[in-house]
């Protein structure tokens, strides 16, 4: 579904992504792991067009994504839920959801599904998004992404700054997305939990993919265990 080939990204003179190759298959849940600053967010932003790459190729369902305007990519089915949520704080929850719904078809049904799955949001639909609690904001952000009816949903650190109980809910939600047939590609710092719900994982360090394995082998990988799980 998503195919990234030899991607290089620079900010000014500084290269942050080096020859990255990634494949995500239809319906798969894939996680991108790596320390802060490894370039995960940059990679996500590049796929969505917020950052232009220096070289390389990104294809989505056979189409060259780099030839498509950033704002048109959601219509192709690629939607990112950015780090820090970036909700429109001065709009209501419902408006936040509405804004992402670029197509009428299936909109109502999607919204119903969201309110059903996330009853908290339904309660707060008329409330300004900026006044929600952190967990609710994250749910709202994910819900907003779902409203675009993506084929592939990307999440950048959805658990950032959330209480463990909320983090659990987020992971539950991701699993529900998969059940809905949405491909999920997400960045996380909770390595273990991420690998539990993802089929495969990529490990990005210093802008390079240093490891790509299925979740099970990754969990058992010495390096991962030592560096990311703190298990000697």
């Amino acid at each position, binding site marked *: 579904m998503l195919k990234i080939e030899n991607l290089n990204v620079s900010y*000014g003179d*500084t290269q942050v992504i080096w020859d990255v190759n990634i494949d995500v298959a239809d319906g798969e849940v894939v996680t991108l792991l790596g320390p802060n*600053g490894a370039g995960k967010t940059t990679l996500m932003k590049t796929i969505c067009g917020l950052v232009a790459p220096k070289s390389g190729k990104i294809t989505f369902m056979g189409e060259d994504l780099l030839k498509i305007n950033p704002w048109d990519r959601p219509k192709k089915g690629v939607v990112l839920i950015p780090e820090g949520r970036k909700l429109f704080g001065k709009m209501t929850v419902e408006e936040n959801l509405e804004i992402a719904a670029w197509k009428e078809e299936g909109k109502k049904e999607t919204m119903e599904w969201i309110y059903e799955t996330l009853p908290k949001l339904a309660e707060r639909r008329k409330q300004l998004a900026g006044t929600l609690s952190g967990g609710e904001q994250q749910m709202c952000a994910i819900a907003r992404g779902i409203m675009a009816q993506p084929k592939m949903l990307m999440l950048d650190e959805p658990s*950032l700054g959330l209480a*463990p109980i909320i983090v659990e809910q987020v992971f539950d939600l991701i699993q529900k997305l998969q059940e809905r047939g949405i491909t999920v590609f997400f960045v996380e710092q909770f390595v273990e939990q991420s690998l539990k719900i993802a089929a495969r994982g990529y490990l990005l360090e*210093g802008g390079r993919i240093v490891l790509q394995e299925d979740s099970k082998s990754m969990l058992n990988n010495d390096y991962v265990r030592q*560096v990311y*799980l*703190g298990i000697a």
Partner: protein
Amino acid sequence: MAEKILMVDNISKRFGGLQATDKVSFDVRAGEILGIIGPNGAGKSTLFNLITGFYPIDEGTITYHGERIDGLTPDQICHKGITRTFQVAKPFPGLTIADNILVACLPKADKVSDARAKVDEILKIVSLDKKAGSLGADLTTLERKRLELGKALATNPEILLLDEVMTGLKPKEMDDMMELIKELKKTKTIVIVEHVMRVIMNISDRIIVLDHGQKIAEGLPREIAENPLVIEAYLGRGAKHA
């Protein structure tokens, strides 16, 4: 036991509805490395912001060498001898690396030329001597971290507060950084907020654990690693089954 040079007593901070720091107390002893860990959002950076005067504290006191420093401005606290780095490195993007360091040297230098003389030395310590002429905006993550550390060192602090200096580094780079920190320990007291367990366990003399703004544990690295409360808070639910 070494002298307690910094004492944080029962400090709290509220942002709107969020209790970011909740009655936290600890002390820092001369010459040690104190590690602070906790999941994202646990209030580690807020703690640094409170100690260094970026946010006023709601309640509690902070005492440094027997003197209250809560209520002082960040620059005054820096002059007392406590310098912090930022989690998201804050280079001065429009200035060259050398000037970045120079700016940091200046407040404690009598003459500009004195400060200038120190720049090369610090650039070498943080291995940025080859990049001296680049702009702050044009650095890689690692270089930013190094610059952040270099700037903090340039202020010649007694206590150095390091906020996630390891994040974004490769294992080899982490090792280098750890060596550097151990080297610094010879002359400075260090408080370090860190994510990477391997690092924190390795270099800390003592560790405190924060979760949801509260201190949930304090002790030697070994004790912390075995504390189930910590494992749950830090590694999440999954860790229990691991």
